[in-house]
């Protein structure tokens, strides 16, 4: 399989165990993604935790209009929010499970997942027991 390109640059770190890149504001608050433009002033890049807990979730059952660029034919997908303890709650795709598996507060782990034939995006999946 050819190497998939990240859907955007500087979303996650380029290392063996990649992690999302957030930002630490001057007041100590952690945000995601790392801000762009003038909003980035004084914001330190911050490597986010690879593990967290499920904060909420849903399944996208209809094909979104543009700017959605998912592969055809449309397949429903899971998404939600994962709370990274002490850091921030991030919105994310959820992979490697079905809707019925998901429970509030369950442990989740970071993964880079295929988005379409040529691109990868970030996701979380239930932590392997």
């Amino acid at each position: 399989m050819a190497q998939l390109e990240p859907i955007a640059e500087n979303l996650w770190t380029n290392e063996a165990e990649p992690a999302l890149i957030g930002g630490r504001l001057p007041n100590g608050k952690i945000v995601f993604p790392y801000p762009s433009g003038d909003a980035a002033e004084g914001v330190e890049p911050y490597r986010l935790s690879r593990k967290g807990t499920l904060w909420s979730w849903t399944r996208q059952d209809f094909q979104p209009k543009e700017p959605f660029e998912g592969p055809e034919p449309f397949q429903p997908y899971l998404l939600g929010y994962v709370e990274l303890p002490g850091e921030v709650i991030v919105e994310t795709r959820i992979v490697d499970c079905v809707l019925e598996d998901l429970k509030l507060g369950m442990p989740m782990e970071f993964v880079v997942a295929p988005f379409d034939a040529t691109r990868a995006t970030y996701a979380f999946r239930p932590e392997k027991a």
Partner: protein
Amino acid sequence: MEDVYIIGAGIHPFGRTDGRSGRDQGVFAVRQAMADAGIEWTDVGCAYGGSAAAGSADIMVNELGLTGLPFINVANGCATGGSALASARNAIAAGEFDVALAVGFDKHPRGAFNAKPRDYGLPEWYGQTGMMLTTQFFALKIQRYMQLYGISRETLGRVAEKAFRNGVHADHAWRRSPVDLETILNSPMVNDPLTKYMFCAPAEGAVALILASGKKVRELGADAVKIASVAVRTRPPGSFEVFAPSVDIDNGGKPTILASKAAFEQAGIGPEDISVAQLQDTESGAEIMHMAENGFCKDGDQEQWLREGRTEITGSLPVNTDGGCLACGEPIGASGLRQVYENTVQLRGRGGGRQVPGRPKAAYSHVYGAPGLSGVCILER
């Protein structure tokens, strides 16, 4: 501040009106509101209005008349109507004018809204990967709420069932046939746990309100309803809002709580004094959560409230008496003013088949929208 009153209310039926532009629907509503108030366009001192997707309001002077009045375009997303109302009220309260118009209208394409990331200061990947949908936000917010406070799927269904039942009696509603609970619960899933019948749809429509000073009310002998308060608020730190790639871990603040508190404070009354409420019901879950965010019940009490029918027209706090967004659809620029229109109808006792019994005295309306703002208006008779 001078007291300010609503003396005329007009509405163009919500839903789909092919061949009539959003702004023309606005003009229709303005003419109806002026007729209701018993005034002419030349009596209107100033005007505020707008739409999200149907153009500027001030061009209406082409149809209504070139009287030279100041006509301020309002572009404030879901709070467009609420902001127009607040501005019109302030213009009268400040003593500058005796009669003001607040108008909102819209006409959206069919299907879910497709927002552009850069319009919201967000990166392109957020839209490309399919996480920038309003419907998802509503599902994600109620999913967590249901887990935390024990709200059942059946209760979500009951909200929609009530909306369609109430819409039957509202001339301006889009969906005017009842839908039973089974059908609602078993209709196609949009974003779990919300099914198709639990969501409102983008639509068309227009609402116009004529506001007046106490002096003008007496002069006209108008059938007036007093604006006890209007409050528009944006999000506080830690709020969970639509289009949020991340949420603060210290979360819980909400623009609705701010707007509600401010409106109750200005009016000098509390939730227990309200006899009818229109609460933003973009989907069933929103109505449930907004019951608590606006101070009408505790988190989790909605399960019992819905089961006992307390928010029915005959209940202790009727909610969304014209079927709300679920039955009327959501033309963004007009939606918030529709709630105030409905409350005006209710306080004047003109609700017909949907009239709240016992001569309601105080009516509450609440609109919520992206990127985290709320508008609350309290009317009194």
